[in-house]
């Protein structure tokens, strides 16, 4: 019995490691391709560890597109979106968890119902609207959609709802105002929720490709994903620069993933799944 168990376990790990290699292989190919010379790339495409390490692709990348400017655009935009989303979602979630009021259940389901309107419906009329508002060509249409997402509010309501009501009551007796209670009680006690929503929003804006493609018309305003696609024409000459750009654009994501790890991400998704 013991022996069978050991064979099972070994087999299990062999399969799992194969799966993990398949998942990680494209990343490895990206890293290796960023540092390989063109010649080695063409002759020994599959070789993961380059014989000759070169930084030429990074030079070409920086010479071809204003990489760091685009990097900063993406960073500032993502952080702005995170701050705005946390303020809006936090205030709304506080309203829903702190008070009992008429129509509470109905209004909450109204918020959830907004998720049923598919993006395909909104694409054209939203574009017309932003044009009429003279917001086409600005960063506004890139941030607004994150504020309309119902999932963040739902998540924060779930988590903030666990704050004991007595805390608010006793703070009120001490003469605490609502805003103070939001910042001193609700916010610190639902840090995890804010963290998850912040991370998810950052990822969404950082990785967004379609919205900037639709709304940004000046190359000087491009975000990183958009800038990277501009290397398309460059593919024919050298693929390394595109890979190098892709690699650098992954760095913030990798940093966040390694700091907050699976905890925030997985938790964030679970809450999303529960409502299904």
């Amino acid at each position, binding site marked *: 019995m013991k022996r069978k168990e050991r064979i099972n376990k070994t087999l299990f790990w062999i399969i799992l490691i194969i799966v993990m290699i398949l998942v990680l292989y494209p990343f490895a190919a990206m890293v290796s391709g960023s540092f390989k010379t063109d010649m080695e790339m063409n002759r020994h495409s599959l070789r993961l560890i380059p014989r000759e390490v070169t930084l030429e692709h990074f030079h070409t990348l920086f010479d071809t597109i204003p990489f760091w400017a685009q990097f900063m655009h993406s960073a500032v935009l993502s952080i702005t979106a995170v701050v705005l989303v946390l303020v809006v979602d936090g205030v709304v979630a506080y309203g829903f968890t702190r008070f009992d009021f008429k129509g509470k259940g109905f209004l909450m389901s109204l918020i959830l119902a907004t998720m049923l309107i598919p*993006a395909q419906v909104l694409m054209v009329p939203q574009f017309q609207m932003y044009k009429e508002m003279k917001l086409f060509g600005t960063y506004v249409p890139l941030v607004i959609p994150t504020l309309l997402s119902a999932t963040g509010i739902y998540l924060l309501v779930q988590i903030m709802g666990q704050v004991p009501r007595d805390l608010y009551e006793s703070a009120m007796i001490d003469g605490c105002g609502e805003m103070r209670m939001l910042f001193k009680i609700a916010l610190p006690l639902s840090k995890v929720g804010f963290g998850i929503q912040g991370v998810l929003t950052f990822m969404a804006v950082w990785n967004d490709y379609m919205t900037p493609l639709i709304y940004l018309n000046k190359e000087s305003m491009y975000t990183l994903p958009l800038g990277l696609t501009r290397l398309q024409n460059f593919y024919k000459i050298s693929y390394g620069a595109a890979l190098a750009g892709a690699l650098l654009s992954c760095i913030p*994501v990798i940093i966040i993933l390694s700091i907050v790890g699976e905890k925030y991400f997985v938790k964030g998704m679970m809450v999303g799944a529960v409502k299904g």
Partner: protein
Amino acid sequence: MKKRKIMPYLFISPFFILYLIFGLYPAVSGVFLSFQDKAGQFTFANYQNVFADARFHKAISNAFFYMLGSMFIILPLALGAALMLNSRYMERKRGFVSTVFFMPNVTSVVVVGIVFKLVLRTNNGLLNIMLDTVSGGRLGPIKFLKDPDWALFSLLIIGTWKFFGVNSLYFLSGIQGIPSELGEAARIDGASRWKEFRYITLPLLKPIAKFITFICIVGSFSIFGEVLTLVGNSNAVGARDSMLYPMVYLYNLMFKNVKMNQAAAMGYVIAVILLLITGVQRWLFRDKE
């Protein structure tokens, strides 16, 4: 005291104000747009054009087959991966493995496009070189991206890589929500592993499976960035429009052909199609007594 009555509504108002302006208003104004011609006159022509448009049919059928493919390929794989993540052999490495599984999902579509072009391209593509090496040169290079017969397969490879991990985590959350007493009781009664899976785990995963298939449907009709970065946006998206997906076509109509009104009409038609498909899905996942 009146202040206290208004207070809650003040707190929740930001979302409703924002949604009214930036969500509801366009959703409604789009209806008018879809029934107007370029001069602003009332017409049905936009919808007629959508229904008669062969490229639109192609985009919908592409999305439909991708949806079926993802349900029958990605979801079973994700369930398998979830069972592995839940296995007692995992011990303390579950966190690490699930982070690895999750990584493709937080990678931007542009990065995915760049990397998979390297993997799938015909000349010097990594997959083709591997196939060539394995088959000893007998397998000629496959045009994964340029042959219409391979287009769906190629996108499904990418979809599997990108989404099986997240879905396995969804399934895992479902599996972990199943009370362990149920499995123990079944085992005491002499049920085999397979029977336990078939009659306890699987039925109890229904709510989560319903959620995942819903995401699958919506996701299949929202494919955009992968295609544009892989094959670009020329007159045909992929050979013979084999990579033309609804979102891509919408974008095309808007910016290349500047047919705003027809694009608006198409948006609503796609929404109705989605509604029908999710209706069927809900019916398939209904609670049978």
